[in-house]
């Protein structure tokens, strides 16, 4: 559905994105992940036809975004970082305007608007001026305008920014509900959002793709690594020596005090069993013992900030 080939964009001497290549299939929900300033929004703007690339190509449903922008724009619903709403318009009028602008035929506008108002739960505020709405509601109006023309492709730039936790959950449910009907690209730097909604992830840093895969395989990238959260009743002065008999332990980190520890290890359940046996034998008063797999957050930080750290160290900069 969306194909991006060697996409590059320069802003003067600064290269915002650098030879991006990726494909999004029909019906996919793809999370576009990266720290601030990584080039997420720029990529999305190019795909929507808002901006032209410096070099490379992007196409949506077989239409090149620069050669036939109108055809592309007919198929895209876009929510920019700031919802593009007119403060002096009523919610319903605004959505009708957007629908007309997107080329929805006159007899269908009412039903399309009704549909998007229902999906985004805007029924109570549809006769109010957008100017008077809270930030969360404005964001929802922004999402409503993206889906009002029932586009094949939805591009959402940080859709849950500024919403309260309940609204965030609602928007996530909404995105889940839109799965299947639309191809969705979602940019964010909030990881649980991606985990909750997306099937595939593209991680981008400094304008380059550092990883693209399904969530499952990304989470398993550090294969076999596990982590243990431990809390004891007594203070433990030297956890490393206590566990020195177990060679599979990679690192031991002290938590907020000497009662809380975090242990990384390589291996399966047998190693965990050995650690628990060791701790119990010492009589430290084991209260909590939680094995976790490395999660997406670790992968993300490793792929993005981890790289920066290495580079900085190379240059002799301490961070």
């Amino acid at each position, binding site marked *: 559905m969306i194909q991006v080939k060697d996409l590059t964009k320069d802003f003067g001497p600064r290269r915002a994105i650098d030879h991006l290549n990726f494909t999004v299939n029909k019906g996919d929900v793809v999370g576009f992940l990266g720290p601030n300033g990584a080039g997420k929004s720029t990529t999305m703007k190019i795909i929507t036809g*808002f901006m*032209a690339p410096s070099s490379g190509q992007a196409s949506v449903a077989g239409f090149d975004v620069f050669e036939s922008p*109108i055809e592309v724009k007919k198929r895209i619903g876009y929510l920019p*970082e700031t919802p593009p709403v*007119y403060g*002096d318009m009523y919610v319903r009028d605004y959505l009708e305007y*957007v629908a007309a*602008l997107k080329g929805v035929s006159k007899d269908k506008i009412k039903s399309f608007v009704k549909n998007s108002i229902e999906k985004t739960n805007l029924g109570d505020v549809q006769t109010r001026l957008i100017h008077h709405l809270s930030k969360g509601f404005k964001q929802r109006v922004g999402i409503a305008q993206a889906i009002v023309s029932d586009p094949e492709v939805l591009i959402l730039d940080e859709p849950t920014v500024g919403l309260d936790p309940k609204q965030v959950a609602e928007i996530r449910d909404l995105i889940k509900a839109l799965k299947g009907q639309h191809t969705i690209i979602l940019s964010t730097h909030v990881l649980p959002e991606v985990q909750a909604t997306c099937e595939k992830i593209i991680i981008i840093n400094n304008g380059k793709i550092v990883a693209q895969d399904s969530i499952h395989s990304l989470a398993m990238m550090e294969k076999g690594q596990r982590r243990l959260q431990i809390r004891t009743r007594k203070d433990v002065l030297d956890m490393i020596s206590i566990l020195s008999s177990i060679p599979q332990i990679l690192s031991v980190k002290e938590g907020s005090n000497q009662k809380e520890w975090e242990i990384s290890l390589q291996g399966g359940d047998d190693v965990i069993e050995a650690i628990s046996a060791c701790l119990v034998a010492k009589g430290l008063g084991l209260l909590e013992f939680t094995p976790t797999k490395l999660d997406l957050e670790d992968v993300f930080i490793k792929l993005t900030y981890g790289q920066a750290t290495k580079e900085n160290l190379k240059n002799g900069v301490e961070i």
Partner: protein
Amino acid sequence: MIGILTIFQKEFKGFVFAPTFWVICFLLSVVFSWVYPIQLDLFAKLLMNYVMQQGVSVNQLNIHYGVFLRQVSYLNLMLIIVIPALTMKLFSEEKKMRTFDLLMTSPVTSFQIVLGKYLAAMGAVLGLILIAFVYPLVTSFLAKIFWGPLFIAFFGVFLLGAVYTAMDLFCSSLTENSLIAYVTSVVLNISIWFVGIGAEVVDSEAGRKFFEHVSLSSHLSSLVEGTIRTNGLIFFGSIIVLFCFLAERVIESSRWR
């Protein structure tokens, strides 16, 4: 075509339902309600005493020159100041509020966006001119009026409004700041009157003719006196097309800048 119509409707509604347009209408009618009766009164006094007054030009004894043309020139002065107030937000506000993103990612061309907005602003300008037209219309109950020259004079000032609107729309497309758009618009509206001054300083015949051709006042003066000349229409049309085209280029440039 549907794109132009959609944007036109939205912007025109924006004018009609926003206070700015009505405040301008109100102020315009306050000014005319003050100035117009005074003009009319002066003209009536002149007619009563004209036998005693030597050397009054014959022109001044005609209501078209004595009253209506003065009103048209006041209207022109008002349009220089008020049209920028109507057009200043058309693009700058879109850019500032990021609603420009919506326009740029909708299946409409830059040309349709500019034309839709231009026509909407022209609708508002027409409203202002109709308000000014009410005064001669009421006068027709008191005096015999030749409608032809009057209509052409108001048509002339409408064309002038169309020129201002095109220039001011262009100014609005250049910036995110409405105030800057307003100031540059007013300066541009005023400065276009000074282009013709060149005719007085150049020596060569060809140069003088050139400046006379691009002088706004020479083209307007024939219109307000009731003569439609094709070269005048073409001149006004060219300025309108030029500035709409420039605005379209500025909008389009945001795609690749």
